[in-house]
């Protein structure tokens, strides 16, 4: 097996970025999957992408632009879904189409070549810098602390938000706090990992973990393991078989999901 690529700094950075980004995205994935807001990840990723493009046009920091747009997406989806006039799918769909439209608009307005913009969309895990790795490490740590410190609140809000409120927990604040955390993780991961890959790493490991356990704690752990395993196996596979890294990671994480679904004890559970 040819592991000589490990000698290169870009590969070491990619491996670390994959581990930190994979684990953090998978952990927030548990939130969106259990809160049945899976599509929120896509909407936020597109909002962050549009925000980065908008900031680039204005000559501002793309990260700040992403942050602003993704938090605005969260701020729009939350109350619209809360009002109960439609299920959460509808406002998420509206925000998604709006941000996609804005992204195309900003791409059109972007002067010069668009390679940088497309990098944001398709990902460039092999070009992650040391500073980006440090940022991803900080993000992964923050997510781990969030889950550990607020575990019982997360569990309560996932189970039933109204009930969490009824027992005297600040359920609304927790709910919005979690949505903002999802937005932040996606935004911070976007420039290093890419929009497509971020969405895969948010959804697939958490969905695979959801198939395998009835314990929320174990679900967080399994999802993080699957997230890291997807990126590492994907990077290894891509370097051995000379395939594009992002696409290989997507395929590996999908394979993990399919295997989890096939062996899921929950397949035998009938819907009541």
């Amino acid at each position, binding site marked *: 097996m040819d592991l000589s690529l490990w000698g290169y700094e870009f590969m070491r950075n990619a491996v670390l970025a994959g581990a930190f980004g994979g684990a953090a995205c998978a952990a927030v994935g548990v939130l969106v999957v259990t809160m049945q807001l899976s599509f929120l990840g896509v909407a936020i990723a597109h909002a962050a992408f549009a925000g980065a493009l908008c900031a680039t046009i204005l000559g501002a920091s793309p990260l700040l632009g992403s942050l602003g747009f993704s938090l605005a997406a969260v701020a729009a989806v939350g109350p619209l879904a809360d009002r109960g006039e439609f299920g959460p799918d509808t406002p998420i769909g509206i925000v998604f189409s709006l941000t996609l439209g804005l992204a195309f608009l900003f791409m059109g307005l972007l002067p010069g070549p668009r390679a940088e913009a497309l990098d944001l969309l398709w990902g460039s895990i092999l070009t992650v810098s040391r500073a980006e790795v440090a940022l991803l490490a900080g993000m992964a740590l923050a997510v781990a602390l969030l889950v550990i410190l607020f575990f*019982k*609140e997360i569990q309560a809000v*996932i189970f039933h938000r*109204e*009930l969490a409120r*009824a*027992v*005297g927990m600040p359920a609304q604040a927790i709910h919005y706090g979690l949505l903002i955390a999802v937005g932040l993780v996606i935004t911070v991961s976007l420039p290093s990992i890419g929009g497509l890959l971020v969405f895969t790493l948010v959804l697939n490991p958490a969905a695979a973990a959801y198939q395998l356990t*009835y314990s929320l704690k174990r679900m967080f752990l399994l999802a993080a393991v699957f997230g890291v395993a997807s990126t590492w196996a994907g990077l290894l596979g891509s370097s051995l078989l000379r395939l594009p890294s992002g696409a290989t990671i997507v395929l590996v994480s999908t394979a993990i999901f399919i295997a989890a679904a096939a062996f899921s004890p*929950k397949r035998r559970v009938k819907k009541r």
Partner: protein
Amino acid sequence: MRSANEQNPPVAIFVTNAVVAYREDVALRGVSLAVPRGEWLGILGPNGAGKTTLLTVVNGLGRLLRGRACVLGRDISRGCPAALRRRIGYVPQGLRIDPRMPISVRDVVRLGACGRVGLLRRPRPADERLVDFWIERVGLGALAGRPIGHLSGGEQQRAALARALVQEPEILLLDEPTTGLDRVSREEILELIRSAHRERGMTTLMVTHAHRKAAALCDRVVLMKEGRLWAEGPAAALLREEVLDRLYGAEGDGG
């Protein structure tokens, strides 16, 4: 209302002229009610009478459009603070729980203690003992580790009751706690509510759609119809065939 004040026990719940609307649907049309501390009040009435809405006015989940609500000495007309909600247990009508939900019966019952425990703190051993106590007491000891979504409707109802009682509430709000249960479970649950109500000296409000036996256990019943209080008084006086026939309409589904 006046009689409750005249007897002079401290009043746990005091609602005056409450109006609640969900967009164009008016759910409560000027309801006034006083519930003395320690009373077990039954609330009966047909579908759409506003029974559930009245409960949510008490725990602040429902917003008053007009009128006033005072609960445990606090005016909650403009919202019920979390600290007060901790003192009010709530068993809503059968929740639909995803059978794949990665949360166990024990986790759900423990939720009752979480408001009291507060942010950034873990439940203390005393809280865990209380969780164990109520899980055993509602008869779910053998199922405590099971995913909550795998339980039958009746078992989920027991878990909901245990969760509300772990809260050690001063007021207990029960929304049709015996719906969907077989006769034996129904009687067990009612007995459990009765003993908890007595032991803890709680003020208990129990909505029951059509279960006359349950209502007969209450100190007092109020009958509701179309968002208004239709009648109130002792159970024996109101739970008569002709009264219920008039409340529910001629077909008399009040049994």
